[in-house]
């Protein structure tokens, strides 16, 4: 029982980490970044290359990888999305194309196999309430909590964070206050991608770097966003908790293979009962339905 709670929490923190960048970008700029999963893989791959090919120390490589991925996200906005802004179909197709293209690039250069593995921050494990948990999983929990706290402080206490929220609430009013819409959207895309890389560096050491992970992360981000309500940090956390615990409970009492069905059924139920998502606002409902 204690094990289920602890691993459920860790699972939820993992999901929050993976999806928060996507929701952040969507909430602020309205761009659904279908390249989010690809950026997740990019973050891990860049870090791996820096460590293994150039031989940079791990913390430095992780930092550089986060920055590089963030810049890639910003570049995606500046080079592509800037030109099709507001045309939803074009935005989706453009980010989707970049995402699939990027992942296929990784597949083509042979990103698979056991050599592609990121080192853990700390080896070893700890006994919590009679359950052994390795340090990496505890770090995930810590990074997840820190990220949420950081985002809250950032969006409530800093000037650029307030600008983000202004744009998210009403673009035209924000514009009249001198908040530049394009600049904010670019920063939000960069930040979202950087969070994807951060998630990759924190979570990937538990398994191998696989291109398929990109697709999984994207599906998860979409599912969490749909269920929790986009843009709402509380919604993301609640949806992550639902999925995280559902996966553990299903895996313990039934068959781990059923967790995908739980995902599908939850999405469908939420969409039927409350299309704006659990924490979505009414304004959002108008946009969705």
């Amino acid at each position: 029982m204690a094990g289920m709670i602890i691993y459920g929490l860790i699972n939820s923190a993992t999901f929050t980490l993976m999806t928060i960048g996507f929701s952040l970008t969507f909430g602020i700029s309205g761009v659904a970044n279908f390249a989010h999963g690809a950026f997740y893989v990019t973050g891990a791959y860049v870090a791996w290359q820096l460590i293994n090919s150039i031989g940079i120390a791990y913390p430095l490589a992780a930092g550089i990888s986060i920055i590089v991925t963030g810049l890639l996200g910003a570049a995606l906005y500046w080079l592509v999305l800037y030109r099709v802004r507001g045309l939803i179909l074009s935005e989706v197709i453009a980010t989707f194309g970049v995402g699939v293209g990027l992942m296929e690039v990784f597949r083509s250069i042979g990103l698979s196999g056991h050599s592609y593995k990121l080192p853990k921050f700390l080896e070893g494990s700890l006994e919590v309430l009679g359950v052994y948990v390795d340090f990496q999983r505890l770090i995930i929990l810590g990074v997840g909590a820190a990220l949420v706290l950081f985002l809250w402080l950032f969006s409530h206490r800093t000037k650029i964070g307030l600008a983000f929220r202004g744009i998210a609430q009403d673009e035209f009013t924000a514009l009249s206050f001198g908040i530049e819409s394009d600049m904010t959207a670019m920063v939000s895309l960069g930040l979202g991608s950087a969070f994807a890389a951060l998630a990759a560096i924190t979570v990937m050491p538990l398994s191998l770097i696989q291109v398929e992970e990109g697709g999984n992360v994207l599906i998860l981000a979409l599912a969490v966003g749909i269920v929790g309500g986009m843009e709402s940090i509380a919604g993301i956390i609640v949806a992550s908790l639902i999925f995280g615990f559902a996966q553990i409970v299903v895996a313990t009492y039934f068959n781990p293979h059923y967790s995908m069905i739980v995902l599908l059924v939850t999405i469908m139920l939420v969409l039927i009962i409350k299309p704006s998502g659990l924490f979505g606002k009414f304004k959002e409902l108008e946009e969705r339905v």
Partner: protein
Amino acid sequence: MAIPIQIDKGAAKYRKERLDRGIKARSDTIYALSSYREAFYLLLPRAVTIIGLLILPLVLDEYWTKVIVLTCVVGILALSWDFIASAGMFSLGQTLFFGVGAYFAGIMNHYWGLPPILSIPLATLFGAAFCTVLILPVLRLRGIYFAMVTFVLPQILVRIIAMSGAFGGVEGLSALSPMPSFWVATYLAILALFVCLFGFRKLINTDYGVVLKGIKGNDQAVMSGGINIYWYKAQAIFIGGSAGAFAGAFMTHFYRFVGLPAFSMDYTILPIAATVVGGTGMFAGAMFGSFILVPLTELLRAIGSWRVVLYSFLMVIFIVALPEGIFHYLQRKYHQIERWVTTES
């Protein structure tokens, strides 16, 4: 961001004047014909497409005929995407229709022993109905949210099949009944493509199609006209989905195999890329695009999986640089006279 406009007064002596040809009235669909020459002018592009496609399998070798079949299948998927998009729904899950159709045909053939002549039409109908029911709860969603859900659905179905091991699991169902003959298969694909192309074009210009286009333009206005848009959207999904399901059912019997690759991302990205390259909203553009992309893919077989990279980025470049697509561009050129005239100074 203000862009300063610079006018070079010395250089601009001539400008290009573009005029619509005489037979084209000031409307997109009405033509005023007054001679056989003008009728010929209108019929030429259509005739070249139909006759050319019917003759191609006779002159090409077997390998390239197979490419033509694949092109037709991608073309049908692209048309289905374009049709659903005409009703204002942007699906990112064409592979859902394809995969469901493929699996229905495979199941009917493998477990119930139905021959292709029964299993393909039945899979088309039931596959489309199944997809429509699956999408029914999310019909209320608009734009991006609809795209997200249609993207997630096939991925989850794949995982369910892979993990539960149903319908052959990861191995899939093989040794299914083949098509009666290679030529029947080839011409069935070509015929189906024509039926979709001309059928959708006709349909979208009827009153029924106007409602669908209205939903895309302004769904609330259509609602205020007392029309149940969800019912129309469901019908549009069924019509578009049956084209996609047919493509899947056809390929099942063509390859004599159905498996998880039926839900592969290729069947989503290729039709959308084809439609974007060809031009959205006109059906002919979608077909045109697939006849550019798929043979190109075959020519580039040597570069392996870089092909997907190529058309992903081709798609991005087109959506940014030439959003109207090649077909719209060519069509405009075909219907216009260009000439240089002196500018008034």
